[in-house]
């Protein structure tokens, strides 16, 4: 079976690197370093899951999320917000816009993140 494709939209290279090392055997990764590029890659590559940071150059995470959830060709792609912004307001906004999970970077270990991703992708698999 083909490996699932995950798009990471994140401007901090160390975060991308850590995620890649942790999950390189299980998934294919593509990455975008800013919001605009991320949005473009979502439409172009149709990944199975998006890991989205909120504070991004050019276009912030909320804008990206809003626009892909409005587009019926991309609206079903699960999006995990992985960020360092963790107020109640932001969380509510993220879920309101259709994020499937909201993770604050410092609160989760890589192991935990990878199990969250696995769960989401498995669920989508059985549903699909």
């Amino acid at each position, binding site marked *: 079976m083909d490996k699932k494709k995950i798009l990471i939209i994140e401007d*901090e290279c160390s975060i991308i690197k*850590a995620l890649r090392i942790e999950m390189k055997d299980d998934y294919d990764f593509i990455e975008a370093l800013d919001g605009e590029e991320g949005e473009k890659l979502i439409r172009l590559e149709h990944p199975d899951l998006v890991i989205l940071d909120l504070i991004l150059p050019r276009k912030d995470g909320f804008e990206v999320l809003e626009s892909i959830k409005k587009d019926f060709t991309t609206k079903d792609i699960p999006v995990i917000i992985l960020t*360092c912004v963790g*107020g*109640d307001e932001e969380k509510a906004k993220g879920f309101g816009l259709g994020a499937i999970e909201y993770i604050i970077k*410092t609160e989760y270990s*890589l192991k935990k993140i990878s199990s969250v991703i696995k769960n989401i992708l498995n669920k989508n698999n059985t549903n699909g």
Partner: protein
Amino acid sequence: MTFGERIKKTLFRECYGERLGYWECPSFLFFIMGLFTIAVMTGTYILSSQYGSPEIVIISLVIVTAVLVTVGYLVTQTVSRIGMAKRLAEYERKKSESIIANLTDGLVMLSREKNVIMVNPKAEEYLGVSEEEILGKKVDDKELLVKYPRLKYFFSWFPRSSKDLTKVEKEEVEIANDNKEFFDIYTTSVLDRQGKALGIVKTFHDITRDKLIDQMKTEFISIASHQLRTPLAGFKWFIELMLRERVGEITAQQRELLEKMEENNESLIDLIEHLLNISRIEQGRMDFKFRRGNFATLIKKEIDILEPKAQAKDIKIEFIKEGKEVPEFKYDEEKISFALQNLIDNAIKYTKPGGRVIIKEELKAPDQVQVAVTDTGIGIDDGSKKRVFTKFFRSSAARVLAPQGTGLGLNIAKNIIDKHKGKIWFDTNIGKGTTFYFTLPLRK
């Protein structure tokens, strides 16, 4: 009013008004002198018609003259005293007026009926209305409020009960307009000798600048903390990858160092979390979600989380439920969890190995639950007692036993309990231990 005072008020009005005694009152003195002169003249007439002696007339004239001179002297004294008192009063009045006029705070005096008696220039500026336009008018007059909308912010509180009359009420008011303005408003009642209200004085203190600085400080903490989270997450995950040998095998010594790094990194992450919580509370951005739940279950959950930590120090944790069963009630589980964890974690931290930590839940009233977290720890010294709930405060003993604490946990816990309308306090005994108590109202 006594009979004497009543006579004084009717016959010698001006003396009553000036609060003069009978022997200081010119009209009274003239009145008495008139009576006396009539009496002496009558006496003289009777005596001289009987004895026909001219000496009597001369003596009576001398007496009348003497009385006249005495009265004249007394009257002059009084008049000059009144004049001086008036000048003094005038001077005092001018002094007070210039002090009030030059106050950097706004000041308004109102009658009992809320009519403006006095307003100083600063108050005119803050209220956005001139003295002529507001003097004598009622501050809650609808027309006036429509014309001068700022008034409603400054005159929102008035004493309602007799208890309100004896206190100074302080409110913080935010004026809703484009550039935010904040004021501390103090209301004091002016009372007569019997304690009856004559009116009220309101003073307005502009705290906009303090507020802005405070906001900037909070925002700075918030931004700095967010910025710090990303690199700390990077460290956390790299260390994790190395410890789990995802990037090659490591030696025992390398593991030891990496574990130390992980520990330090986690305490930095904790510090950032606490700072963010504080700045959220201060910005009023911490949302509270009150949901019904079983309180004992929550306590047990927190104990389970901290049990390994206690075991590692050979400390026993006990949970006791006392009194009637606590019914389910509404609270913010996440926030109360934080407060509970903080109290239990502190109890473990400051208790020596082999000690005990007891958590007691008790229904104190039909609508109130009390939790007590007791340890057999070091206790809190007198010098530190007052500051236990203060931001960033750490006692010297605490610094030795738990060097990585942030000094923020108890401040956040207090904020959380306050937001639930509960109370938090402690009893402590140096060397024997401390009990932290908190109560929560049982929201239905």
